[in-house]
């Protein structure tokens, strides 16, 4: 299975470990990823409000790059995903917009016809790999590991895009966690907002909003939280010590990117998945790594490359 891969800005900077883990895990899953080197930022939440014309051009351009490769687009960030989905929807519903955007893209010989299928890595796991194949590939089932799924907003809302009457009914992360051998827990934060989009000018909203949910996950005996969005990760992991001060409670909750959780179950070591690159220590999860499990088939980046080359 081939995909055009769009990591977004976060996975290329503060959350570079997400990019590392995605590339490792994708190769193991048999996903061939083509990097869209010249893809820009999608504009986060800012551009779509203050400069919609530029927002559509940047996002449709990413879709056009994928279309030129003849590949579906795979994302690993919730906000990027919603941005390209929204831009695609606007593009196909307005001929005028389509004409204006394609006019701008023509300067570099690009053109979008509306054919690119957009999929987040979480959806690719369910749709393109599937439960059966995933179960076959899980060489290090994460038995005994309790995880709290933190979906983030833009992979499950707005209702007009995803169709949920009540987004709390989404179970994509929990059902995946079960396939990997983990036990998902219920807590207050599953569908809540991390507040990232106000954090650049004032991180206090994010700290206030999110601390209580990590505390709830802790009360529910979660050993880790997992999120499909690097922006949520930035808040949950990066601001956790500030949250601890705010609620006067020790949290010490390791936060995993989705491909890191999958990677552990596929036999990669915590080091290979760059769990050491988080602010909150992840040492407590070492016991779930393939090295600690005598029955697990170990997978290292080197052995994997050898296997592929062999």
């Amino acid at each position: 299975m081939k995909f055009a891969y769009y990591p977004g800005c976060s996975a290329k900077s503060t959350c570079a470990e997400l990019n590392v883990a995605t590339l490792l895990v994708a190769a193991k899953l048999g996903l061939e990823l083509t990097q869209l080197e010249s893809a820009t930022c999608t504009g986060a939440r800012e551009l779509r409000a203050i400069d919609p014309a530029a927002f559509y051009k940047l996002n449709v351009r990413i879709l056009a790059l994928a279309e030129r490769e003849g590949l579906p687009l795979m994302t690993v960030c919730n906000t990027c995903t919603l941005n390209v989905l929204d831009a695609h929807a606007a593009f196909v519903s307005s001929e005028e917009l389509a004409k204006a955007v394609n006019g701008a893209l023509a300067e570099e010989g690009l053109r979008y016809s509306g054919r690119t299928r957009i999929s987040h890595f979480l959806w690719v796991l369910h749709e393109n790999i599937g439960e059966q194949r995933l179960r076959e590939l899980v060489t290090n089932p994460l038995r005994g590991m309790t995880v709290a799924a933190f979906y983030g907003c833009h992979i499950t809302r707005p209702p007009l895009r995803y169709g949920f009457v009540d987004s709390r009914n989404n179970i994509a992360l929990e059902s995946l966690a079960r396939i990997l051998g983990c036990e998902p827990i219920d807590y207050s934060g599953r569908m809540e907002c991390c507040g990232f989009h106000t954090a650049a000018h004032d991180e206090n909203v994010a700290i206030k909003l999110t601390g209580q949910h990590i505390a709830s996950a802790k009360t529910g005996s979660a050993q880790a939280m997992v999120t499909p969005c690097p922006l949520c990760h930035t808040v949950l992991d990066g601001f956790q010590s500030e949250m601890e001060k705010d609620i006067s409670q020790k949290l010490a909750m390791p936060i995993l990117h989705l491909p890191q959780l999958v990677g552990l179950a596929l036999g990669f070591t915590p080091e290979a998945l760059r769990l050491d690159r988080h602010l909150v220590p992840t040492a407590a999860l070492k016991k779930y790594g393939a090295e600690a499990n005598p029955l697990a088939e170990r997978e290292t980046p080197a052995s994997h490359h050898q296997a592929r080359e062999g």
Partner: protein
Amino acid sequence: MTATPAPPPFARQLGQLENRDTLAARNTRLVPGDIVAVKVRRYDGDSGQASYHDFKVPYQPRMRVLDAMNWISENGTPDLAYRWICGSKMCGTCAVRMNGREVLACWEAVEPEMTIEPLRNLPVIRDLVVDRTPYEEKVAALQPWIERAAEYPGFPEPLTHREIKDASKALDCISCMCCYSACPVVGLGGFTDFAGPAPLVQLGQTALDPRNAPEKVKRSLALTGIFNCVSCYKCEEVCPAGIPIVSRVIEPLKAKAAKLLPEMVKHSLALRAVVAARGRVDPTALVLRVQGWRALLKFPRAIRLLWRGKINPVKTFIKTRTAAYDAAHRILGREP
């Protein structure tokens, strides 16, 4: 005969079938003869005591949350306090939280087990009745009316559908307060100056009207704290009028703010400039640009980020252009 198994859902909709997350499924969960187990949060404003009371309500065809409340009131609990007037999604007075979700009691099918609570983020007067005063004061402060920039040109006014498209979405609002209750930022109380979704929708009805004078819109927008919206779409999720509050009201209002109050939009303009200069966001550059000298106060945090390799000052200060620079510069090089 067994029913044909439903096809597996789209991954992005996993849970919709499993949890009956469609209107049709929700409306056919119960049949006459079933019992609806209702738990109601009751609150006595005089004593300040709150408690949950259980009721067993016999299901009737097409039963709504409001019908269950009426049944409880008519069968032994005449002092249950709740509001409703029209019973048909017009007056916006009967909103409550059912199983943790804001709904209009007159428009929502009952669930087999349901907990009914008053809306959040507003003071409770009694049982399910909330005090709407804080909301109304906010709306009044925003002065949601039109002050014409030009003379009234007489009827019919030259106004196109396109010019009024966002304001007309906002005009669908029935002021039910569902979004105000669902908003996590409003839930932080006075922590920010964010007006909240419902007052912004009320403001959008006139501020997004092209006849309104920019000076007037500017005055109102300055009071909204609109950039504290976290874009979580919780408001859109619960809006019974189906208003795309974030994308058709809050974002167009932010666009107005970008033109009229650039100092309020510093963060968004900074992001635009960073992407135009580099092709992608460099988080350090963005934070320095937005927070300026305030960022220096977070020196210990910067050290921690540096230690874990989360930030790269070399890249930031020598202004690395990514492979995306050319395209970003071409698209964003001009002023918005």
